[in-house]
């Protein structure tokens, strides 16, 4: 939760508007670089954003906003020492820069340096008593330290300024849970979900309160809502399993526990990688592994960022570039995908996977001739690959070369006879190329497959 809040705060800050007028010369160049960096950061491309900001900082070393955004980009990359250095640079230029001080405090928290974090957050509040995020973040530190009275005070002060802040209610509810005040905890968390009906974390806390109150049906309901809004909330699965167990539904509980365990193992791996990177930010393989783990969880933007940095640290890695290309492909960033696949092929022209993937992205870009060329090259290098033949078949059919399409598709069908879609397309290709008997044979086979239900 704390991480989410910090990330949200950082993200908001990255969007800082450029208010100064463009100046000529170096200042103008710095501004252009700053704008580029901001745009890149907003797309989650922090590695490239850092490049832009660093160049901007050389041209305009006295610009607080450049150092500030640089710090944010470093923070998003988990490079906390560099982020802290950037924020401290901002504060050296402008000691009243509230956001930089707030984010510096967040970095101290990342390093478990709570005492320093508290100091910085307190300074933020003295500079800007209306800085709502700080009430939450500071409260959360006290929460971690078990100083629940301080948490209550801070959150109440925050709520005095914004009584509709669901996050405050959530943390307040969790605090009351820790204080064994279950009734007030439940009421507070209910208020949190009234204000933000999609707040999965609040539902998780509510589920845990209901478990404490031995209201197991209510706990089940809250846990299921949490899962509906955040399918990666392992705490929600755990609470649900506990509720089901206490409701006597042991088999369901066991199933949910298995889901929890699988998720927990995935998240553990990610945590391990993040921890490792905290100590060794230049470990490209660790970055790539992190990317792989994010990919497995469907967190593609984060995965792409991890691979971007891996590529940055090890530009000659075919695997990193290919995987980054794949992520761009899945994210719909086709131009970027082409760049990565081509870079991989420049390193090794015989890399069949990159040819295949390049063919895929060209298909999506409707650059069909290039797609055919890429897939043909992939076929030459990996003649046993069934899907290459399938897609080549589709491409040839699209250009009207049905004989060639039938040739390719028949290879795919021979390798995977239960592949219904390939057989249907093969039937069409046979028909269009004048091979009526072959087409009928395929259609008969398709009919039989449908009736038997045995097909892919």
């Amino acid at each position, binding site marked *: 939760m704390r991480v989410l809040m910090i990330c949200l705060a950082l993200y908001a800050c990255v969007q800082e508007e450029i208010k100064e007028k463009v100046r000529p010369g170096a200042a103008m160049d710095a501004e252009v670089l700053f704008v580029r960096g901001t745009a890149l950061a907003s797309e989650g491309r922090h590695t490239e954003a850092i490049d832009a900001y660093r160049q901007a900082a050389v041209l305009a070393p006295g610009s607080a906003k450049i150092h500030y955004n640089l710090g944010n980009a470093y923070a998003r990359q988990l490079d906390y020492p560099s982020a802290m250095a950037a924020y401290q640079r901002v504060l050296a230029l402008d000691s009243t820069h509230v956001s930089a001080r707030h984010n510096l405090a967040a970095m101290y928290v990342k390093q478990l340096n*709570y005492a320093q974090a508290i100091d910085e957050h307190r300074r933020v509040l003295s500079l800007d008593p209306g800085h709502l995020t700080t009430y939450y973040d500071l409260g959360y530190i006290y929460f971690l330290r078990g100083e629940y009275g301080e948490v209550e005070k801070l959150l109440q002060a925050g709520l005095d300024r914004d009584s509709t802040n669901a996050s405050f209610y959530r943390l307040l509810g969790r605090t009351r849970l*820790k204080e064994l005040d279950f009734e007030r905890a439940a009421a507070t968390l209910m208020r949190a979900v009234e204000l933000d009906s999609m707040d999965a974390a609040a539902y998780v806390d509510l589920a845990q309160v209901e478990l404490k109150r031995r209201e197991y049906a209510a706990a089940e309901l809250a846990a299921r809502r949490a899962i509906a809004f955040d399918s990666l909330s392992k705490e929600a699965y755990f*609470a649900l399993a506990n509720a089901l167990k206490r409701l006597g539904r042991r088999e369901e509980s066991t199933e949910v526990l298995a889901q929890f365990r699988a998720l927990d193992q995935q998240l553990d791996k990610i945590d391990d990688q993040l921890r490792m990177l905290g100590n060794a930010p230049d470990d490209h393989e660790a970055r790539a592994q992190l990317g792989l783990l994010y990919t497995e969880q469907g967190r593609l933007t984060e995965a792409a960022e991890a691979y971007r940095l891996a590529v940055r640290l090890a530009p000659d890695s075919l695997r990193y570039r290919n995987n980054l290309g794949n992520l761009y492909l899945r994210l719909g960033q086709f131009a970027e995908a082409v760049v990565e696949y081509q870079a991989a092929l420049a390193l090794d022209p015989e890399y069949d996977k990159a040819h295949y993937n390049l063919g895929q992205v060209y298909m999506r870009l409707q650059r069909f001739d290039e797609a055919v060329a890429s897939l043909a090259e992939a076929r030459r290098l990996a003649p046993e690959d069934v899907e290459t033949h399938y897609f080549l078949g589709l491409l040839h059919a699209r250009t009207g070369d049905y004989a060639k399409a039938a040739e390719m598709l028949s290879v795919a069908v021979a390798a995977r006879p239960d592949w219904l879609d390939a057989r249907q397309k093969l039937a069409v290709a046979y028909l269009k190329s004048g091979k009526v008997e072959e087409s009928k044979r395929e259609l008969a086979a398709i009919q039989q497959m449908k009736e038997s239900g045995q097909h892919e």
Partner: protein
Amino acid sequence: MLKFFLLLPLLSVPLYANPRFYDATQGAGIDFVHFNGANGQKFVIETVGPGGGFFDYDGDGRLDIYLINGAAVPGTDYDPAPQNALYHNRGDGTFADVTAHAGVGDTGYGMGCAVGDIENDGDLDLYVTNFGANVLYRNEGDGTFADVTVAAQVGDEGWGASAAFADIDRDGLVDLYVGNYHNFSYTNHRVCAEGGSGLQLYCGPEAFDGVTDVLYRNEGDGTFADITTAAGLGSAEGKELGVVFGDVDLDGDPDLYLANDKTLNFLYLNDGTGHFADEALLAGVAYNEDGDVEAGMGVDMGDYDNDGDPDLFVTNFQWETNTRYITLGDGTFVDEPFLAGLCKGSIAYLSWGTRFFDVDNDGDRDLFIANGHLESDVEQYENATFPQRNQLFLNVGDGRFEEYAEDGGALSLKRVSRGAAFGDYDDDGDIDVLVANVAARPTLMRNDGASGHWVRLRLEGRDSNRAGIGTRVEVTSGGRVQTDEVRSGASYLSQSDVQLHFGLGTATGIERVVVYWPSGRVEEYADLGVNQEHLLVEGAAR
């Protein structure tokens, strides 16, 4: 009339003196100092040990003390080399260092110890875990020990943490389980920077890989066989620190619970033949109540609520709650530290050795926790201290505990504590505590505050293993039924007295004692006297 109703419940509650612990270390002649070799390079072994133990090595009826020492690390020299120490209880409150005579002064980098009678000859043998090869000392019965590690084939060279003996296949011979922590070595050593301020800190368990533990089957001929994998215990996923055996499912065989550091805990249920399957996840004892893994350190099993089922307790890291798992009676547990009153009091401490025991002899089991941080520099980056005071939680009934803070006694001392062992060394009818401290003297905490009646039971197996390890006993006194089990190991790196101690409160008699021997034999005793020790020999009940 009003006074009558107010007085009645007060009079019905026995009044007990407040617990009071006296630091008897110096007066007892315990001059042992633990050395950990620390020289600033932050080898993580320096901050994990040590443990210690109470056991009667010479059969004179008095508890002696064994203390584990560290050793030099690269860049540190000691002359002479630190060694483990055995202190003989003279019976007058003082101890004599008999290490050299007894031959148990191992100089390996020591972690913990456990005892059991490996050859059923009536004396307790001693197993020492090390960072490096472990050591088995066979008790020769004449006040000396022989190092039989090589012949017995139990010198596992991993990083041994807690260990425990148990007769896993109920063949009358105790087997041996050794929990290994992780794969740290001097060659993969590194320093971690978490904590901020540029400080060089010990790396947490995440920085290293788990390794398999070892289960040795006692072959009965002086040797042991490694049956870890065959017994279903070959997982390398855990990073074991705490080990406790006990009959969790009350089916007559010892099950195994392992506290792991930042990996999920394991509950291995024994199928009765010495084969185990991990049921921790389904039983609800793998994670804490929120589904998080915690930094499991020490562990104990005990029936604190006197309902006949063993409950579990695991000590964890600072800012984590210690975890008490209550048996629901259907093979599952629930973790409710807040309801137990154990949350607020534990979150500010980094906890290690622990035990359910009846500190005031009022008839229910209280809880002791040894505390101390890992990092000597912790005060520079966190609202915490390196030395911390140990804690005592009194059982106040209804499943709740309340912390008891002593003013000026041994409980108020701040040390960097690790292992804790429990036993009545001064034979005055209450349980004393031996706490092993890092790079310092241990603390011998003499209990001077218990006022209730008590009984101590020494179990001696015949068909079962001689030390009675794994024997479960039910004591009915004053209408209250208490259960406990003879254990080797448990707590953290430590060995407590293998005799069973029951506080009886105001009861002046014991209606019934039922003994469930590991052999399957069940025996019953009636009308045992209070405030004394009884020797219960398997097969001798009338």
